[in-house]
């Protein structure tokens, strides 16, 4: 098999950090090659170099055995390299086709030839089994579909080598499976794929080879067939990793959160949460399982005051907090790891120090006279950074410059350190490496053992099963059943998540 991409001795530094150090990478024609590495290992940076977004400080790149200089993404595209980023770059009010042709619009005279564009998009979509509707508006389609649009966009521009940066982080298990099929169909028709992911199961099922990167250096390149999850985890983190946490028996106390008959409407008066009742007691973790878009996000927003409650009640430690503004909810003892870190969790242009006090910026401990005491804020941030192993040159850099996983670690650190009596964790480990997941899971269990109440919302069934004491399944805006963790299995949850009856499914399983 021929080598389509070769990177030799690549190095790249950012102020205060050697992000990439003497990296060697070979991609064979027609393979799916996974880049695996801790948060901040340098995977995205390396791929941004290949795509021409960054210039390497040293080293050379060969495409189809010819040395090239990739000075910007247009050069990369002309060489047949396409990239789908960790965070999408689509224009929501445009149609799928308009997004795809943006920047390389087919012209008929002076006007845009949209009909031929639609035809071409349809043809590519069919060829690789993408099932994308070229006329739909991007804002109306699911995240999984949007990702396919991004893939289509690269194919439309003639990509032979596709780079996918953490494509599965935002997908549901069903969508991940479908993506697997698409990738197989792409390589079977002669494309080569570089895939970044933290999910070891996916590495095993989707890839042909794996390259492991740690702190900017290549540790090893392995054939997927000849390795296993434990080995990969160890190579990546540099120590043995407990993929599953030991959990003590819960020590359950008083009711902390009580939700009664909660209903939530959106601005179009569509009902997203349709009368939900549950409670969480101190010392327990209630997991909420469900396919994305079944009202989980709206439920959390209603509890935290980020959206209006149509009817029903939310009580925290017996106190009514229904319809309170976010500030009051925070002050009454609620911590919240939001599902979308770029939208809600961080002010990307703020420094890490400034981000570390978001939500507790009114606290007396950060004040000095009429102003904020920035020295104390920085010291506080430094402590969080070292306690939670956030990889960054300093607390003064902007949150923007951190790798995705390290941004997440900072948010987790901030919310746990507030020591809330109720912690809402939505997708708390999205984008984290296995080492960091181990760490965050440990800290969440620690909170539980210290008598906190936790509401865990996750699309990862593994995570739900591993951490929860009880599991509520949400379907179509309602809680369709609550299981004790010991009675829950992946299969049973799966049936309930699809709207099946929990009782009937019992019989099915037995």
């Amino acid at each position, binding site marked *: 098999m021929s080598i389509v991409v070769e990177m030799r001795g690549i190095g790249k530094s950012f102020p205060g950090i050697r992000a990439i150090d003497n990296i060697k990478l070979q991609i064979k024609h027609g393979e799916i090659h996974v880049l695996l590495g801790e948060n901040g290992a340098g995977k995205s940076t390396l791929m941004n170099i290949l795509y021409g977004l960054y210039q390497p*400080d040293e080293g050379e790149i060969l495409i189809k055995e010819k040395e090239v200089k990739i000075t910007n993404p247009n050069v990369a595209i002309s060489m047949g390299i396409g990239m789908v980023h960790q965070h999408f770059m689509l224009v929501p009010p445009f149609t799928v086709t308009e997004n795809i042709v943006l920047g390389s619009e087919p012209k008929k005279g002076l006007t845009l030839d949209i009909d031929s564009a639609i035809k071409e998009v349809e043809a590519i979509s069919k060829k690789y089994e993408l099932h994308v509707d070229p006329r739909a508006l991007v804002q109306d389609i699911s995240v999984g579909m949007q990702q396919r649009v991004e893939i289509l966009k690269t194919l439309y521009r003639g990509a032979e080598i596709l780079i996918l940066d953490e494509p599965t982080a935002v997908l549901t298990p069903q969508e991940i499976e479908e993506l697997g099929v698409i990738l197989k169909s792409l390589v079977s028709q002669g494309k080569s794929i570089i895939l970044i992911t933290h999910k070891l199961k996916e590495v095993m099922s989707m890839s042909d080879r794996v390259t492991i990167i740690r702190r900017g250096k290549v540790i090893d390149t392995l054939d997927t067939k000849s390795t296993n999850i434990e080995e990969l985890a160890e190579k990546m983190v540099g120590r043995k990793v407990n993929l599953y946490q030991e959990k003590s028996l819960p020590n359950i106390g008083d009711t902390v959160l009580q939700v009664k008959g909660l209903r939530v409407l959106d601005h179009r008066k569509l009902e997203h949460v349709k009368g939900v009742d549950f409670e969480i007691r101190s010392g327990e973790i209630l997991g909420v399982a469900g396919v994305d878009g079944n009202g989980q996000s709206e439920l959390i927003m209603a509890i935290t005051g980020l959206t209006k409650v149509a009817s029903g009640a939310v009580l925290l430690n017996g106190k009514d907090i229904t319809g309170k503004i976010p500030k009051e909810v925070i002050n009454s003892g609620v911590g919240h790891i939001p599902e979308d870190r770029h*939208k809600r969790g961080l002010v990307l242009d*703020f420094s890490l120090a400034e981000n570390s006090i*978001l939500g507790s*910026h009114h606290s007396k401990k950060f004040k000095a006279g009429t*102003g904020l005491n920035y020295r104390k804020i920085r010291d506080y941030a430094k402590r969080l950074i070292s306690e939670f192993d956030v990889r960054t040159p300093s607390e003064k850099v902007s949150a923007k410059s951190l790798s995705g996983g390290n941004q997440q670690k900072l948010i987790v650190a901030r919310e746990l350190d507030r020591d809330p009596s109720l912690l809402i964790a939505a997708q708390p480990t999205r984008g984290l490496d296995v080492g960091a997941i181990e760490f965050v899971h440990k800290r969440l269990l620690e909170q539980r053992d210290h008598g906190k109440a936790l509401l865990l919302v996750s699309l990862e069934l593994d995570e739900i099963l591993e951490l929860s004491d009880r599991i509520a399944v949400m379907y179509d805006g309602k809680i369709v059943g609550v299981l004790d963790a010991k009675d829950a299995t992946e299969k049973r949850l799966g049936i309930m998540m699809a709207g099946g009856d929990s009782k009937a499914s019992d019989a099915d399983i037995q």
Partner: protein
Amino acid sequence: MENRKSELIEEIKKNAKEISYPLIAIIISFIAGGFLIYAFGKSPMVAYKSLIQGSLGDWNKFGETLVVVTPLILTGLSVAFAYKCGLFNIGAEGQFIIGSISAVWAGWAFNGLPPVLHVFLTLAVGAAAGGIWAGIVGWLKAKVGSHEVINSIMMNYIALNVSNYLTMTFLNEEAKAFTHEIAQSAKLWRFAEAFAQFKYSRLNIGIFIALAAALIAYYILNKTVRGYEIRAVGYNPHASEYGGISIAKNIVLTMVISGMFSGLAGAIQIAGVQYRANNLFGFTGYGFDGISVALVGNNHPIGIVLSGLLFGILQKGGSNMQLNGIPKEVVGIIQGIIILFVAANFVRIVFDKIKENRHLKQKTIREGK
């Protein structure tokens, strides 16, 4: 101690970097302007010399330049402050006008107050009026979501007409197209009273008030909880909301503070320079120039002081150039070039390219060896 010192140095460095790009853009603009003047068949040397002489040539000219600089700094701060919260306050002009006319009223109606108190009251009334004027726009944005740009443009026209109405009726000096003069006790102290060098200039302590305002704006934005919230809302309203920050409250407050800077500019113009308001045929331009000043000053309080100075020099010196046979429009063109360069972030783009090329070159040199 050591710690604090290094911290200070770092802060200065950071701020210097932020205003260095516009500075370079300005130098380039002057060079480009020089070529232009040459193309008109005039000597750039003569032109720039008369520009400097007209604005900084002697103490009186310098004083008069600072008289123009004072309101420019304040309206520049006004626009920049709103910008930090993600708002475009194009209504600085109206806030300036409403601040002026209110100051005329306060300076005239409270005749008999002790001087210091009266001056203070006059400025406070002007600032408050500007604050309320802008606050209405903020409130409309926060409550009904109507866009601040459109509303503040409309408020500009309302301000102009309200001011003219008051000038010709309630505050009118009989049979004149201007208002009563404010009381002696409401007038700002002029340099001419103590320094003979400034005898023929209207320079007053308003310039120090403007400088103090720049420091206050810097302090509020960068060192207080309020500033933290304002900037957070400007950068990312969703995350702010999540962090318990009220977007509506900060929008209104920001507009009020922003309007106060413009209103104060108008009040100083009355209490320190004009002593009365005229029936206006059109906008004064101070508010609109504030937008350019803020842009060139990179929305940074210190940058705004410098760019306010620059615009003041261009305005004052420009008239002098005309006396020397160089069309005044040249100044307008130079201003235009500066704004274009700054707005397009031209210098930064060029610098990044140069840096990149240097990297590539070093690499080829290394490889060549």
